[in-house]
């Protein structure tokens, strides 16, 4: 496929667009249980063998990817089920974390459970069936360009007060990278400090960095995850326009949600901007010797892979193909369709950073990398169903505690917030640390 | 007389016995349970006649008590617990109906003995997994159906191996095959013609009918043939022995050896039990002075396929494992070459007096299932009870046998006593009663609940008892099959 121009904005075809496109998949799912468990060859215990927060919490089959495939049939094909009751509950209580998708692809070549889950949400949103909290979030996005409830557009750049960053908004200044903090880092007072730290660390490493100041907006990723496709697309296009105007070609973000949205979802819309997560740059700077850890940080940590940086953080691959049966009934994609198996996400960079910090001891949890357990915040669940979201976070904290580590380290503000202050099943808490805090301490 | 006439009409005069001495002899047994001499002994010669007999018993309300072995009756299971009973002696049905080398399957009638069967199997280089030195007249079928433990638990993937399919006439007079054989016509020859060798014992649907005749003491029906899985006979074999001062010292090794599956035979004996087994060749009292308190015996074998390689690998590995547990596994210990012990345990006892009776004239046994790590508890209990009652603890025989790949362990205490002494008899009776209760209290499991054990065991589990009664109501609705057994 010919390389498009940077902001071509021609949507990539081939991939399913609307719910009806998934009907063959709904029928072809074989109910193997893959979407309820860590891939069977990677399971390390019964206790932490499950992968899908939704069906782990709610237990009814409906809340699994398989259940949603069956629900899709019931809605589309036979109309046995309407857009109401537990159908809606199951549709929205999905973190869109993609664990089911990764597990499914270990054995299946023609199913896309995550995309299907989101397609169900999108249709529900179109029908006006989204939870009120999510509707409010979408309205806030339109109004204030952020999905955080109290965010004000005018306050967007407050986080950067005192930083000497190039202002790229007017295209008067240029930089190799635009720092894109994302809403959490921009508006949450605690996280804002960490955003500054990110900037300082990157500058210290010699990165040519600027930002858009008040011109920054929400990436819209949450809108996509929650089924607000139109709002997401509008936001993505608006961002692209701004970046285009500002001449921005590369973006660095400390937020995994933003990273995923720009890397994968924008790309699907034809927005082909290069995005890196801050940990990738930091890891490179450490490797190149541009950042040197001089201080010891005596801490045992376990690293939580954010879904959107890990299994959902794989590079986008354009594809425009069709299905074709061979050997009478063997279903194929022609040409071969990209299989997002989750293994090409950003896993090594954060681990390399942690291993390079003197005194830090990394102890892995059972569910790591592409099989990581979601923090619970995805899919807007922390907004409209905090009890559920907290339960998922608690499960992760419990798992982290079994490692014996003193703290959980992560590289996503959503994960950081959701895992912080949550009790494990033993009724105890764990420190949750942004990876940049450890980096700053060690420099 | 109507009864006798009916029986004679059915089975022929020669096969109906009512000679008082014979009746008396059939009632003799080692148990202290209430028992009655039968009114008749009948000797049907075919499954059809057995079926006819059971149907007749249902019409007339006659209790039937099947017996297949000959010789001393160590337990009271084949002796009537009620008056007016007819003993069904199947020892004359002693044909080996089929031997199949390809699948190592054999089909035997109830009267077939170990010596008879092994002689036939040896022609095709096979052997049947045996129990610990049975009497010469022991019916193989009964031994297996009653789940008497095998010396080699490694070829027991199933609790009842080597038992596979049976033909049974249930207490209601219905005759049928079980397992794989139930899926086809009730005609063995027709099944063999289709290369069906009665290998698969389950079902054939969702009910394991054969399980209902196991450990049943003939209370559910009468088995008229059983298919059994034979083993390939070893070309090279050595029974190794390691000694120990106490039972606990053997535990680690036995667990590990079971885990590896390297042994063929594997069992534990205490000094007295070992000496008793060797009584033909040695004086038991003299042996008691020289033998170690405990031994574990472990077999290593090589069979048709590269026998030397297998034998050597198994031997060396077992010796190494034993060593890692501080045990010296050898080809024999003082006075006891492993080969001699192997010969004793794997052969039948052809002496007039059974080996367990040899020391004092008679014996009583208490046996049950447990787990290896708990055997010490029961040993202490047995010693304490014996001491309390003044029974010499040095005469307690102990035999521990892993079953079913080591899932459970048969533990057996043997108490020799002088049957001519009323005091000794009373003492051993009290001992057995007290120990049985103590065993049950400690969680010992009387899976084969003979005599009073039925009451002790079944009363611990009301639901299983109710289930059993419901099943007896289905398969023996008129309670003609060995009534009084499995009673609470």
């Amino acid at each position, binding site marked *: 496929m010919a390389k498009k121009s940077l902001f071509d904005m021609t949507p990539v075809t081939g991939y399913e667009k609307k719910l009806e496109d998934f009907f063959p998949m709904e029928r072809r799912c074989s109910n193997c*249980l893959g979407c309820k468990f860590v891939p069977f*060859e990677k399971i390390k215990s019964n206790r932490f063998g499950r992968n899908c927060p939704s069906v782990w919490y709610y237990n009814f089959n409906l809340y699994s990817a398989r259940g949603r495939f069956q629900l899709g049939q019931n809605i589309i094909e036979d109309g046995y089920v*309407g857009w109401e009751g537990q159908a809606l509950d199951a549709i929205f209580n999905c973190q869109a974390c993609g664990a089911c998708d990764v597990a499914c692809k270990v054995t299946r070549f023609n199913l896309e459970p995550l995309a299907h889950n989101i397609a169900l949400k999108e249709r529900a949103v179109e029908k006006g069936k989204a939870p009120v909290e999510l509707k409010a979030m979408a309205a806030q996005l339109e109004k204030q360009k952020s999905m955080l409830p109290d965010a004000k557009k005018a306050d967007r750049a407050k986080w950067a007060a005192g930083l000497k960053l190039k202002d790229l908004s007017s295209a008067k200044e240029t930089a190799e990278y635009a720092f894109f903090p994302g809403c959490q880092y921009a508006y949450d007072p605690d996280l804002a400090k960490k955003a500054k730290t990110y900037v300082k660390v990157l500058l210290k490493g010699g990165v040519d960095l600027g930002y858009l100041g008040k011109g920054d907006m929400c990436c819209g990723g949450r809108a996509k995850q929650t089924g607000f496709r139109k709002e997401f697309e509008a936001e993505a296009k608006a961002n692209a326009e701004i970046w285009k105007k500002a001449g921005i070609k590369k973006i660095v973000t400390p937020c995994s949600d933003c990273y995923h949205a720009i890397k994968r979802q924008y790309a699907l819309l034809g927005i082909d901007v290069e995005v890196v997560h801050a940990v990738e740059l930091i890891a490179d700077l450490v490797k190149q010797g541009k950042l040197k850890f001089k201080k010891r940080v005596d801490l045992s940590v376990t690293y939580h892979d954010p879904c959107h940086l890990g299994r959902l953080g794989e590079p986008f691959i354009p594809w425009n193909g069709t299905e074709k049966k061979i*050997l009478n009934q063997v279903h194929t994609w022609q040409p071969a369709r990209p299989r997002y198996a989750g293994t090409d996400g950003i896993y090594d960079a954060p681990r390399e950073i942690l291993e390079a910090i003197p005194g830090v001891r990394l102890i892995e949890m059972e569910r790591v990398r592409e099989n990581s357990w979601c923090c619970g915040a995805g899919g807007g669940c922390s907004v409209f169903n905090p009890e559920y979201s907290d339960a998922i976070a608690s499960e992760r904290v419990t798992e982290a505690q079994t490692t014996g580590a003193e703290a959980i380290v992560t590289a996503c503000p959503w994960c950081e917030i959701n895992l912080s202050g949550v009790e494990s099943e033993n009724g105890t808490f764990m420190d949750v640390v942004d990876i940049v805090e450890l980096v700053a301490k060690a420099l | 007389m109507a009864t006798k006439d009916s029986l004679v009409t059915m089975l022929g005069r020669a096969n109906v016995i009512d000679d008082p001495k014979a009746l008396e002899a059939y009632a003799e047994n080692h148990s202290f349970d209430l028992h009655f001499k039968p009114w008749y002994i009948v000797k049907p010669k075919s499954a059809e006649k057995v079926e006819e007999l059971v149907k007749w018993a249902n019409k007339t309300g006659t209790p039937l008590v099947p017996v297949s072995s000959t010789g001393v009756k160590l337990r009271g299971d084949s002796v009537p617990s009620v008056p007016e009973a007819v003993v069904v002696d199947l020892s004359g049905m002693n044909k080996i109906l089929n031997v199949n080398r390809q699948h190592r399957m054999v089909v035997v009638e109830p009267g077939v003995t170990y010596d008879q069967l092994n002689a036939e199997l040896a022609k095709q280089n096979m052997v049947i997994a045996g129990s610990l030195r049975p009497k010469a007249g022991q019916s193989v079928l009964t031994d297996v159906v009653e789940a008497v433990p095998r010396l080699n638990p490694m070829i027991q993937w199933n609790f009842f191996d080597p038992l596979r399919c049976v033909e049974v006439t249930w207490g209601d007079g219905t005759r049928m095959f079980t397992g794989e054989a139930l899926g086809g016509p009730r005609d063995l020859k027709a099944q063999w013609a289709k290369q069906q060798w009665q290998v*698969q014992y389950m079902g054939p649907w969702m009910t394991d009918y054969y399980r209902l005749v196991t450990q049943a003491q003939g209370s559910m029906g009468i088995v008229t043939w059983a298919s059994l899985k034979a083993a390939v006979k070893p070309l090279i074999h050595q029974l190794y022995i390691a000694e120990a001062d106490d039972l606990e010292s053997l535990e680690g090794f036995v667990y590990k050896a079971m885990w590896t599956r390297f042994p063929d035979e594997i069992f534990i004996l205490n000094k007295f039990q070992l000496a008793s087994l060797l009584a033909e060749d040695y004086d038991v009292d003299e042996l008691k002075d020289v033998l170690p308190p405990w031994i574990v015996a472990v077999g290593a074998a090589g069979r048709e*396929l*590269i026998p030397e390689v297998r034998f050597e690998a198994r031997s060396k590995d077992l010796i190494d494992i034993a060593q890692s547990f501080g045990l010296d596994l050898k080809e024999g210990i003082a006075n006891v070459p492993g080969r001699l012990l192997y010969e004793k345990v794997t052969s039948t006892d052809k002496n007039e007096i059974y080996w367990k009776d040899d020391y004092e004239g008679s014996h009583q046994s208490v046996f049950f299932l447990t787990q290896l790590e708990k055997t010490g508890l029961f040993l202490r209990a047995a010693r304490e009870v014996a001491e309390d009652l003044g029974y010499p603890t040095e005469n307690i025989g102990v035999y521990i046998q892993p079953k079913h790949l080591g899932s459970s362990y048969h533990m057996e205490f043997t108490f020799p006593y002088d049957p001519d002494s009323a005091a000794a008899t009373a003492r051993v009776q009290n001992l057995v009663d007290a120990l049985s209760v103590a065993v049950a209290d400690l969680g010992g499991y009387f899976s084969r609940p003979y005599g009073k054990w039925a009451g002790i065991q079944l009363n611990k589990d009301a639901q299983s008892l109710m289930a059993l009664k419901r099943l007896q109501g289905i398969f023996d609705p008129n309670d003609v099959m060995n009534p009084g057994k499995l009673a609470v």
Partner: protein
Amino acid sequence: MAMSKDFYRALEDIVGARNVSCDPAVTENYRCITAQSSAHYGPYATRTPKPLAVVLPGSTEEVQQIIKLCNKYKVEFKAASTFWAAMGYIGSDNAIQLDMIRMDQVEIDEKNMIATCEPFAIGGTVSVEAMKRGLNCNIAGVGCSSSTLAGSSGWVGFGPSSIFMGIASENLLGAEWVLPDGEIIRTGTLGSDGEWFCGEGPGPSPRAIFRGWTGTAGTLGVCTKISIRLHPWPGPKWIPVRGTAPAYFADGLDCVRAYTVCYPDWDAYAESFRLFYEADICYLAHRQFNMFGRDIKTAMVEIFTHPEKQFCDLPALMEDPYIKEQNEQMKVDVQIVMAGFSDRDLDYKEKAFDEILRQVGAHKSEYYLQQDIEDFVKLYLLRLGRKNYNYTLCSSYEGNFGLSGNVFVAAPLMEEAAALKRKWEQTHTGVAAVGGDSDMGSVSGIGGGGTTGWEFFVHFDGFDLASIEDSNAHIEETAAWMKEKGLGTDFGRWNADARKPDGYNYSQAEHDSFYEKLPQPAMAEYQWKIREAFNPNHLTGSYYKTLTPKEFRKGKK
């Protein structure tokens, strides 16, 4: 059918409102689309009936209360854990579905080699927990995503490991059952002493009625906990895995060897099975990859071991001369895995294996000697986590020419069965054209060897009605051919008498008409009596096969 409000309210009282639902989105989700599951009848595009409600019990006591309630209100019920198979689903409009997902615990008694498992402990997690302690469990051929308890209490349960580890029935020790009338029975030592090590007796085993060749498919109450026999595992606590999904490989499992045997003919194949049984050398033994079909099996393994490859690469791979040659050599093949419990043990097993191959004139496949391929096979068969590969080719499959029996009977018929399937592949586009022979199965369907279990995989598209219908017709013809050969009921038709094509239960009259023709009908008559004794209100559907006894038929009694 309407459900009593009181009945539903009582269910809420038992399990809590959160764990019961009659919302159509939930209840529709518990209808089995039988073409999407290897249902052993059909395939059909129909769905099983919709339950009145779905209940998620969290304990044995809750199950007991639910069943007592069902008896009071005369509502049918069925419990299932993974819903992988059609037999777990209800068969009437007046029924509730129990989903056992909340009961998922597994405990290991390392010393005594026992696992206790709740219904939703799957083979994958049980084996993982066992391996940590140097142990392993038999995983049914259906794969490690199936419930260990369901395989042990509900269905057949043999697989690649059964030659060494026995089948589910053989490994089942104690069990806790809530009977169809609501009483709880605990078998063997569990009932008397709360110990899990023996499920037999006392005396004749009541266990007999819960588990035969198959389990009772959820028709004799609800099994809430079992113990199973575990078996030795000489490898590390976790199977180390390398590679990129889906091309995962077992890494550095030196105590395990995996080979594929190529035979000159079916006689050699059968004879080698006899020798494998006698030599006692196999840890796992299965004809596995042939399930994709004789013409494509090597290409499929290539795809699975190369993450960049997909099914669109099949045609090119099939034309590759090297792969063609491998398929040719492996026309008659089997996968064998040996595990060494010591160096000497592994040495003996290797030598015995070589000797068996020499005696029957077979050889090891060179293709499968490649490190990656061997490591792929090890992981595949040890964990059996790829059983969804059964479905991956076309999205669905059903077995035909399937039996468990004497390999010396089956082997001479393999080519004839393959020709029959090839004919269908050529004349009907509904059946995937994979080379006729797509036989797969266990070298042993019983511990230690003795019977084998096999089936031909008929791959079809569950989305495509014509494909479903073609496959059904093909299986029907095979079943007729098998009848003609005197082979008994085809595996693909095993449940044809358990559930109607429309997904509903059979009536007793219909069952009577089937089973009165049995060569020994007593087997079904006694089950009728057992049902009357233990399931007096007939609340569990027609997977339980019953024939009204003669004395109760046609006006008698």
